[in-house]
Structure formats: C-alpha cells, structure tokens
C-alpha cells in the first residue's frame, strides 16, 4: 500500500472573534492592542458576585452568520459552563453553548480549482474567549484583555478530503464573515483561529480512523501545510503498523511539522451544565427575518452573478469577490463605464498591482471607482488611447485628480483628426524615404516602425486605429 491508497477525512473548527464594540458579557472594550489588562472589569476577571449579561450585537452577528452559513437558527439556545482550570480562564469555566447551540445544520459552497464543493456546517455556537498567558521560564503572566471577547465557533462536518480543500473552505468562511462585517478575519492577530481534525483510512473503508486535532494554526498557508504534514505522518504510522494516538497537536511553522500538545489521557471532564446566570437565549422568528433582511450578497452569489451578468471568466469573478470592498469597487467602476471586462482588467491588474506596491488595502485606494470608470469610458469612446490611459491612471493615483481634468490639463486627448494626422504622416514618410522604399519592396515588418514614428511625433496621442488606417493607405501607393 502507498499514500494513494488512503483517504484523508478532515473537519475544521473555526473560531471567529465578533466585531462588537464591547465584550460578550460585560462592558469592556474589545479594542485590540490596548495596554496590559486595560480592557478588564470585575465580570471578565471573574471577581466574586459578578454576573454575565449578554450583548445583543453579539447575538445579531451570530444569527447573521448562521443564516449566511445556511444554518437553522434555534428558537431557544442555551449557554452552558465548560469547566476546567487554567490561569487565563478567570471563572474556572468558559461560558459556551453545548447541547443547544444557536446555529445548526448548515452548509457552505465554495470553489476549489474551479470545482464547486459543499461542506456541511454541523453547528455554530456562541462563546467567550479566554485571556492570554505568556511564559517566562519560572513564571507566567496573564493578560485578560481578550477574556470575554465574543466568539462564534463554526464546526464543519468531516467532509473535507484534502489539505487544499480545507484551506479553501477556511478562506470561503473567512470571506463570508468579512462580507457580513462580523469578523475581520485576521489569522495573524488571532481574530480568526482554526483547529483542524484529521484522520486517515484506507480507501473504501467505512469506519473513520483515529482523529487527531491540530490547534491554533495562524495562516491559510499553514492550514494547508499542517494538514499535508499530518496526513503523511498518519499514513506513515499506518504503513509502519504504529498506532495513531488520539491527541491534540500543535503545528510548528518553522520546522513544518506537528507535535504532541496533550494526549487523550489528560482529557478533561468538562462537566458542562446550563449556566444559571444566563437564561436561555430566545430568538423569535421576526428577529431572524429582520436579520435575514440585512444580509448582503455573499461572495459566491456575487461571483456567480458576475459570470452570468457580465460574462466575466470564472477566475476573474472569483478573484474580484474575495473581498467585499474589492467587489464593490469593481461594481462601481463597471457602473461608471459599462464595460465589465475592461473594468475587471483594470481592477485586477493596475489597481491590485498599485495597492500591492504601496502596501494599501482596497479601502485606502486613492482612485475613486467612479474616476476609473470614467477613464475607461474615455478609452472606449476614443478620447484617449489605452496607452495614454496608463499615464492618466498613474496621475490619478498620485494626485487624486479626475481623469477629465488630467487629460485636459496635460493635453492628452487622442488625435483622431484625419487632416492633421495626414500632415504628420506625410512628413514622416518624407523623412524616411529609404525605409519606405524598403517596405514597398516587401519588408512588411517596417510597418510597425512607421507607426512608432508617428506616435512619437504626436507624443502618443494619435489614435492608433486612425494612424494604422492612414498609413496602410499612403504606404501602398
């Protein structure tokens, strides 16, 4: 048997920090990067007598996400206490949803290399984040700023079959969260965290292999690499007749390997029970419908529409819809020029390249979409040439000016006037009589030379189409 004789079974648990102003059960700020323990209070430090009060916004963000993940929203979900001792868990329990989560039975569709895939969402439940411990040899330090930040834990079914698929699924979920504006999806800062469950089994085998959990992977690339490593490690185990231990492992990006964090033997008995400080979360139908009405168009729906309505290639549509703001930018550009393919080309090449080079995000783009659209229109109506347009775009990027003003101020309007172009062509032909002779005797390649000379003489403003036409006519004689 070899690697090809095995299937991998992969499921993901994605923890998304919700973008509320205050924490899930208390009034502290969720602001990232505050000073040590600046965002704490008696509630999230678990001081005696403090009580949790649920944040409405956190619930609404969770409902919206559940709807976007095609989940059923439970009319009555229950917060439970998950009990274990750890210094960054102030109350000795984490408030989480257990047997009655808010969202259940959903699915996510996404593209992997042009193929549509569907992954089931078993559940998405609300919970509070823990604090952070940092280790310093003979002591550790605890910062509770993060304790109590609302999390939505999105649990997929064991439906994924490859590392690549898993990473694409994670990206799809992130894009949805960002479209909804409920999570900023930053893996490096930990606002999105991913735990992966991996097992392998010989092809054709029904029962699942022993499951291994890999915790806290902080980039999409590492999700892919960690899973790849883990699949290989497990297959090696099976081939070498070693037992796979049910355990939790961590991924070391530097060494590109996973290693044991804890084994099943020290598994916890979490002693879950319903939190009597919080009443069941009752969600009326009307509330769900109100939330449904606020849902934006989601990335996959948008990409599908781009393909259908604008005849964009699937690749373009997929790329443009990675981020809602980019898709919006494209749509506004398109609205201003009425040429989707050109709009898509400009956004995907010039806009993205310039953003990349200047380290800016689409939100900081200095060229308003309407300006870009108008510039594309100027190309399409022959006011400027495509070549000049690159200059105009560069100018718009640095000065922020409108394209019309730039074209006018710099005199960049395309010359389409036949009489004036004929004058330039005549002069060019006269000055290059030898080359003209050579062309006429069969050196076709020299045609380009003449185009270049005319463009040069007009500082690139001549309309290439008109120049071509006129040159062909005059050089044949």
């Amino acid at each position, binding site marked *: 048997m070899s690697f090809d004789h095995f299937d991998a079974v992969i499921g993901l648990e994605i923890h998304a920090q919700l973008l*509320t*102003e*205050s924490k899930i059960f208390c*009034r*502290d*700020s969720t602001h990232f990067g505050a*000073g*040590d*323990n*600046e965002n*704490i*209070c*008696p509630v999230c*430090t678990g*001081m005696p007598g403090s009580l949790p*009060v*649920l*944040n*409405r*916004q*956190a*619930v609404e963000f969770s409902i919206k996400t559940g709807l976007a993940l095609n989940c059923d929203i439970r009319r009555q979900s229950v917060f439970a206490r998950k009990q274990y*001792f*750890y*210094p960054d868990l102030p109350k000795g329990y984490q408030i989480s949803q257990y047997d009655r989560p808010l969202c259940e039975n959903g699915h996510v569709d996404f593209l992997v290399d042009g193929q549509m895939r569907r992954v089931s969402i078993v559940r998405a439940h609300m919970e509070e984040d823990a604090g952070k*411990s940092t*280790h*310093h*040899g*003979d*002591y*550790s*330090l*605890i*910062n*509770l700023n993060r304790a109590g930040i609302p999390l939505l834990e999105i649990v997929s079914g064991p439906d994924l079959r490859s590392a690549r698929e898993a990473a694409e699924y994670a990206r799809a979920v992130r894009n949805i969260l960002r479209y909804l504006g409920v999570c900023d999806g930053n893996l490096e800062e930990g606002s999105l965290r991913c735990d992966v469950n991996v097992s392998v089994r010989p092809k054709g085998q029904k029962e699942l292999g022993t499951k291994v959990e890999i915790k806290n992977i902080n980039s999409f690339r590492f999700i892919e690499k960690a899973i790849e490593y883990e699949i290989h490690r497990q297959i090696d185990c099976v081939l070498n007749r070693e037992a796979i231990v049910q355990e939790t492992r961590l991924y070391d990006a530097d060494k590109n390997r996973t290693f044991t964090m804890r084994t099943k033997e020290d598994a916890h*008995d979490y*002693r879950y029970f*319903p939190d*009597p400080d919080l*009443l*069941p*979360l*009752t969600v009326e139908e009307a509330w769900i419908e109100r939330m449904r009405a606020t849902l934006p168009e989601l990335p996959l729906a948008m990409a599908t529409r781009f393909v259908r309505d604008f005849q964009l290639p699937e690749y373009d549509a997929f790329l443009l819809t990675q981020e809602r703001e980019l898709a919006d930018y494209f749509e506004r550009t398109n609205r201003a020029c009425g040429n989707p393919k050109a709009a898509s080309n400009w956004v995907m090449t010039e806009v993205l390249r310039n953003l990349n080079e200047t380290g800016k995000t689409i939100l900081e783009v200095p060229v308003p979409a309407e300006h870009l659209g108008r510039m594309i229109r100027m190309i399409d109506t022959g006011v400027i040439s495509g070549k000049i347009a690159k200059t105009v775009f560069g100018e718009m990027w640095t000065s922020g000016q409108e394209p019309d003003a730039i074209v006018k101020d710099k005199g960049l309007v395309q010359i389409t006037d036949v009489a004036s172009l004929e004058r330039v062509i005549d002069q060019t032909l006269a000055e290059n009589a030898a080359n003209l002779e050579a062309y006429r005797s069969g050196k076709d390649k020299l045609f380009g030379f003449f185009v270049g000379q005319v463009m040069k003489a007009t500082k690139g403003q001549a309309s290439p189409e008109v120049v071509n036409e006129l040159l062909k006519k005059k050089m044949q004689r």
Partner: protein
Amino acid sequence: MISQETIRHIAKLARLEVTDAEANEFAAQLSAVFDHFQEIAQLDTAGVEPMITPSEIALYLRSDQVERQETVEDLLENAPEKSGHLFKVPPVV
C-alpha cells in the same frame, strides 16, 4: 458506595488536595449523602423539561456599549502577585 479512588478522582477534578484520612471521611460521608439522594431515582420524570432557574424572564440583552467603572489598578489591587499590569503565576507549561 463511593470509593476512595472516586474521591481522589473528584478531588483532582475540583483541584482539591485530600489526605488519606480525608479521602476516607469524604468517601463515607458522600456515600451516605448520595445514598439518600438516590431516592429521587424512583420518581417518574419522563418528558419533564429540567428547570434550570426559577427566573421566567424571556430574554434580557444589553446594548453593545463600552463603559468603564474601575481602573486597571483597582482590578489588580487584590492580585497575590503581579508584574506591571499583568497577573503573575507559576509557570503554566
């Protein structure tokens, strides 16, 4: 009958130390107490929704607003050990 071994397991979960004498005493006491509590096992509770709290409030939510009442110093004042504005504990790994 609750064994000493169970008592030790429970004590571990609850993060309590028990001496042999205590384990012995707790085993006897908890056995007696839970033997008595067992009486509810014979009651028919089929289909009864558990009652978690007597509060009949439908739903109480708070608006998403930041408010500060204590300073970080107030909240660290009672810490057995701290370093700057951080709580200090024995090594956790």
